[in-house]
């Protein structure tokens, strides 16, 4: 097991190295006018306050990212700094990338965790019920709802939710982190949390709605597979009650792939929800990165892409390891 994990980890490092190299090459090779325009814009934006001028920005950019060294050497410069935890200073936010990340990640994490918990609580029971009564109305409803959930574009769900809850009913705000007249300094900690929570309702609902379908389908498919297995027939032949068959024998076996899948999505809680956060102006990592990418903030963009790559790899790794942990048969093989 240990050997397996070490092998996988090493593989992940290699993949990360090359994936980031590819991304770095892409950013490096973006038409030079992009970099120049950005430098010009930055210079124009900061010159009034006595900031750097265009040439200085360009020089800083080139030096910081080793743009003057060629792709390979530049990449190693970046990687060397990155491994030391130095991702440079974000242009857009005017602070260290890691500091900005630390400032916004908990918003993303909270939002993701809430959505994740609700997703599990709703999707798994419904998936099991649908499989238990295959071809019943319940099954068709669950299948339809899950397919609709998968098929709905995030922005459409967000728009409809905003229209219903923010515009027509007026219960919640249309976006942002705090109410219009909320002043953090005047509020107690509880009021602060309550106000924040109110603004997390719509984004969380959007996330749940969009992601619930996939898990529901996955649970149903796996449950069906398990229900067709010989050991379930055996359990029924033994005269076990249906509740025991489903709840104990079938469900525990269904959990194997489901837990593997969920374990794989755990690192994703740190990657934020790019689209949802942007649509609702929740200042999480997704929203911050979106604005960085739009405004050509190369340091933060590189940081975000590196983060995404690490999280994806970590997700795969966790799901591989969990698979071995949860299912003893894999370990034997």
């Amino acid at each position, binding site marked *: 097991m240990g050997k397996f994990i070490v092998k996988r980890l090493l593989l992940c490092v290699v993949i990360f190295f090359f994936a980031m190299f590819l991304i770095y090459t892409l950013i490096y090779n973006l038409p030079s006018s992009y970099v120049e325009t950005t430098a010009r814009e930055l210079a124009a934006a900061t010159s009034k306050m006595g900031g750097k001028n265009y040439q200085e920005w360009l020089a800083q950019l080139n030096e910081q990212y080793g743009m003057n060294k060629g792709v390979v050497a530049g990449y190693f410069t970046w990687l060397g700094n990155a491994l030391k935890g130095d991702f440079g200073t974000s242009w857009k936010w005017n602070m260290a990338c890691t500091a900005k990340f630390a400032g916004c990640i908990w918003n993303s994490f909270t939002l993701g965790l809430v959505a994740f918990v609700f997703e599990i609580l709703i999707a798994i029971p419904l998936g099991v019920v649908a499989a238990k009564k295959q071809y019943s109305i319940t099954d068709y409803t669950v299948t339809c709802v899950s397919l609709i959930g998968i098929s709905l574009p995030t922005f459409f769900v967000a728009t409809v939710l905003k229209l219903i809850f923010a515009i027509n009913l007026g219960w919640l705000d249309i976006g942002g982190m705090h109410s219009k007249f909320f002043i953090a300094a005047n509020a107690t900690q509880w009021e602060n949390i309550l106000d924040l929570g109110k603004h997390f309702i719509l984004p969380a609902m959007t996330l749940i709605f969009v992601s619930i379908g996939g898990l529901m389908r996955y649970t149903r498919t796996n449950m069906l597979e398990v229900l067709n297995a010989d050991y379930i027939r055996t359990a029924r032949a033994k005269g076990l009650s249906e509740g025991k068959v489903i709840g104990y024998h079938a469900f525990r076996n269904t959990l194997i792939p489901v837990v593997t899948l969920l374990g794989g999505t755990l690192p994703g809680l740190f990657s934020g929800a*790019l689209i949802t956060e942007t649509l609702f102006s929740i200042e999480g990592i997704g929203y911050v990165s979106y604005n960085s990418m739009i405004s050509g903030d190369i340091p933060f963009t590189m940081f975000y892409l590196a983060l995404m790559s690490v999280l994806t790899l970590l997700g795969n790794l966790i799901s591989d390891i969990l698979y071995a942990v949860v299912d003893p048969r894999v370990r034997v093989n």
Partner: protein
Amino acid sequence: MAENNTTNLLNEKLKAREAEQAKETNAKQADEPIALDDASRVKVLSPARLVLKRFLRNKLAIVGMVLLIALFSLSFLGPVFYPYGQLDKFTTVKGMELDYAVCGVPSTFNKYMLVENKATDEFKNFVDSFIKELNNDEADEKLVERMGSSFIVTKGVDNVYTVKIKSAELYAYDNIRKEVKVGEPSAELDAKIKAAIENKESEFTFEGVSYQLVSKSKTETGVIATYPDGAEVEAILATKLTFDPVESGYKVEDEMISLALLNYQKENRFTYKGAEYTIEIHEGGSAKILDSTGKAVIDILPYSIRDISGKDSLGGGFKTAFAAVVNQMEAEKSRTGKFSYDVPQLDADTAQYLTDEDGNLILENEELAVNRKEISGEVRYYANYSVRKEVYDLYSPPSRAHILGTDGDGYDVLARIMYGGRISLIVGFVVVFLETILGVIMGGIAGFFGGWVDTLIMRLVDIFYCIPTMPIMIIIASVFDKLKVPPYERLMWMMVILGVLGWSGIARLVRGQILSLREQEFMIAAEATGLKTNRRIYKHLIPNVMPQLIVSMTMGLGGVILTESTLSYLGLGVKHPLATWGNIINSVSSIEAMKSYVYIWLPVGILICLAVIAFNFVGDGLRDAFDPKMKR
């Protein structure tokens, strides 16, 4: 016995029938080749038909298929029959209230000086306050004093006020040069004054007027004239009446106005530059000055009336009519009024007045509405009439002409949806085909050759799997924005990039399938027959991967449509003027638009969902049909 007999009889009959049947069948078989008869033949369906049969049994898959057919006909056949294109801008004729003329009620008096001298010049600015004092006392005549001078202010008819000099410093003399400095005294008076200065007299009387000499400085002496009662000199005329020439180009001299005002409502006739003029008084405070031939040369109006641009280009007739209405409104204290008059017609497109061949304005009788407005204390009356003007038909609600209304550019929403559907679906197909081609080639090579080739390609797959699509697309799109890439080129690039980023999944799937198929007997047979590697992969292996491929392609189509519409919604995908489902919704993404134009974004959003749902239903149905182990 009887029973036996009957059975025998029956048996014989049956035998006879069987023999007959046998004969018939023999006769038939003589014509046809020997085959199993239909009843005993095992019904064998080809694999494809088997899949089709299973597919058709799935209700959800059928729903998906019907939806897809509907969406495809809407997007690809719809525009053929629909009369509007995606870039047809629609216009509508709207009645627009066009302000034509403005009438201002003067708040101050216009002053006309009869005697140009020191006193009138200095006291012109006091006239308004004189009149105010007079009106406060509700008197018709009042003696007012200012700075040692005194005047008699008289109220005339129609707000015409006369200021007469009772006593004022009219002249000033230079002591050293001994000549007049200010004022124009007559020669005799001049001599008298000079004599008085010489003799150091302080006052004298000349022609009934007493003069007083005042030493103003060492070098200057002022002469104050005091008129006896009834002999005061008219110096300033103040009025709110305006004098406008009937024909443009006619110069109205101040002197002529002064003369007219002096005689206004009195003798109503005056002589100016040797010509006789008469004043014709009309009702409502307006009047006309006629020349000796009886032709009207000047309109006298209680208000100043100009066209809306401020130019004095309106005819006298219009002014008189307008003034009459304003007069009535002033009297009734009403805020609106109306009258009709011949006014020039406006061109719908250029907002210019229409002219005929000779360059004359085309006039038509229109009903003009008059509205009273107060702008920073000044009262103004605006005369407007409604013009039919053609404007872009923006955000018009659903109607018979535009089933889903029009959008913010005046495009027909339904036409945009149809053409948008084309692009969205085409993007989906192109991207999925690109992904599949790349994936099949890479996966096929990896799976078939195994070894280091497999390891290399699979690591490449891992790398591509690890690169997040959405952020990369956003970065590239923002670069495109900065470089201002044209919409069509952008669309092409977007499809290529999505395809290149998306092949890893398909490659994994193909490799996995091929790894298991490679060991099967038919592949050994293919190798034994000495087929080339190429042929073995693409003729024997790939067709066996087709079922999984088709399923994953169908499901992938939905995913690509979602990605494209999300990008376009964020304004980073396909750009205006090209329509896609995403950017139609983007065009109404503001809160106000979201609320007011539900009829634009809701149908489009539903179409996106339907398209993705349909692809997922069909993909699901295909999977079940290809892999019956899971079902029933």
